[in-house]
């Protein structure tokens, strides 16, 4: 057996766990998760600048899940299968880490990988330029920001995106993304 979801959680909880959620990513779940973050990390205990950045990353990550997850495989050992996604926020040393995980169909690997690798290959100035270009020129889908999400995260954090694809079965992979904020 290859991929173990529980091991993934365990690894992502390293450091001080602030919040975690796994299940159906609904609009209400997104609201609740954001409210939980705001109640747990008050302005007094963290710099407002950092707190805002973490909040922004949480919004983009949660809404990315909301708009883009695939149905999980039928035999996955999880309770809620509709719009299943997982998110873990911990503070590890001087970094906040937002980790997301979701099941995607195998054929999507290359498009996800290409998009992230492209964003990661850019300098800060190039990220800013591309963000403006996409904002100004691209048609947006009903769903979201037409690819601005990843760019926005990299721009605001100044850090590269880390990701992994874990093989689940012949048709599915588990896509895991880590964003670091400091």
């Amino acid at each position, binding site marked *: 057996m290859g991929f173990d979801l529980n091991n993934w959680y365990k690894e992502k909880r390293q450091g001080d766990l602030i919040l975690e959620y796994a299940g159906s990513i609904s609009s209400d779940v997104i*609201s609740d998760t*954001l*409210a939980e973050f705001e109640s747990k990390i008050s302005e007094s205990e963290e710099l407002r600048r950092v707190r805002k950045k973490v909040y922004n990353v949480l919004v*983009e990550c949660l809404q990315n899940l909301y708009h883009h997850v695939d149905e999980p495989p039928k035999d996955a050992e999880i309770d809620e299968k509709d719009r299943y996604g997982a998110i873990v926020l911990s503070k590890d040393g001087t970094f906040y880490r937002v980790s997301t995980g979701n099941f995607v169909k195998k054929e999507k690997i290359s498009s996800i990988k290409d998009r992230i690798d492209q964003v990661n290959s850019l300098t800060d100035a190039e990220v*800013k330029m591309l963000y403006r270009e996409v904002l100004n020129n691209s048609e*947006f889908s009903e769903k*979201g*920001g*037409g690819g*601005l999400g990843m760019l926005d995260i990299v721009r605001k954090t100044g850090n590269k995106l880390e990701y992994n694809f874990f093989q689940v079965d012949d048709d599915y992979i588990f896509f895991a993304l880590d964003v670091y904020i400091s």
Partner: protein
Amino acid sequence: MMETIIREETLKTPFVKFDSDKGVVEIKGRSIPENSIEFYKPLIDWLDKYADQPSGKTSVNIKLEYFNTSSSKCILDIFRKLELIHKKGNEVEINWYYEEDDEDMFEAGEDYQSIINIPFKMIEMED
């Protein structure tokens, strides 16, 4: 006479006031809805109508605490409508507010300013 739009702030959508009488366009708070088009379409439609008979001066106050990338294009669409009004020779003043240590919100204002041909007034808010 056009109807004034007032929307109270919700968890994910900002306070909005579009008042044709006074020539005031205000958006304040958080704009992080999952479906931003649904929220902004009526506002953009309103500006379309307002453009036919705008007030001599339109004051635009954008005071956002957070906005998601899904809202960013809708906000640009609002600025584009205002740009048309400005192009027709009407005065349009855009005030972009940001909290003093919020470099991201300042840069977001710069992003729009780089695309839209209306001078922005960048206003830093102190605590």
